[in-house]
């Protein structure tokens, strides 16, 4: 049996598809018994799907650095 803390970690890993098969099995079993965790897991999945839906973009550190350099030249 795993603790709720452990379950939360595995749940986060599954959001990035990084949990191992045995971890997923443990998580499933835990979610089956633990109401609070299954609720939290649902919320977590929802957040992942929101992030995917929003098609977020971000600038890499390198691009930001370039921007800063450019900025310094002017300032």
């Amino acid at each position, binding site marked *: 049996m795993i603790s709720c803390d452990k379950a*939360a*970690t595995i749940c*986060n*890993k599954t*959001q*990035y598809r*990084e949990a191992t098969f045995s971890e997923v099995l443990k998580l499933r079993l835990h979610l089956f018994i633990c109401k609070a965790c299954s609720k939290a897991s649902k*919320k*977590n999945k929802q*957040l992942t799907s*929101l*992030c995917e*839906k*929003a*098609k*977020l*973009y*971000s*600038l*890499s550190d390198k*691009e*930001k650095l370039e*921007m*800063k350099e*450019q*900025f310094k030249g*002017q*300032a």
Partner: protein
Amino acid sequence: MTQHTLEPKLWVDNYADYLFNFAVSRVSDGEVAKDLVSETFLAGLKSAKNYKGDAAERTWLIAILKRKVIDHYRKTNSKKGKAEVRMNYSSASDAEGDWLEEQVADPFSMLENSAIENKELGLAIQDCISKLPKKQAQVFTMKTIQGVSTEDICNELDINPSNLWVMIHRARTGLMGCLNKNWF
């Protein structure tokens, strides 16, 4: 009303991603959006003395960015001579029958709405990310948005995986709370 001050040194760190998302959703081209954002920062610096301190820094920068986006479209249109709108009734112009009915928008289509909603959602999420503690925001952005692998993040930031998962967990919890307040 509180007085706001400008701190140009922190602009890139604090607002680059937010402005970039705003720009990308309007010009749908990463390179152009990047240029617009850096132009915005430069313009902001140049007219910093005109900043009255009524609006928050970010609002002020967004206002400049909006002008830059408009300028961008003006420029691309003038290159072609002038804005040209061409309409084809349908690609199969020789089709007979109910051609007018076919052009009517589908009242049950959710596509248009959800596109607009997704734009706003993107900005809402970005907003919430920027409210997180810096380290958490950084890890979350790298992991979720840039899709960097766990190993690479750990190497780059010099932390161990369990550290990373704890930070991800806190970031996700924080984000969820923030989105619950501002989005749902």
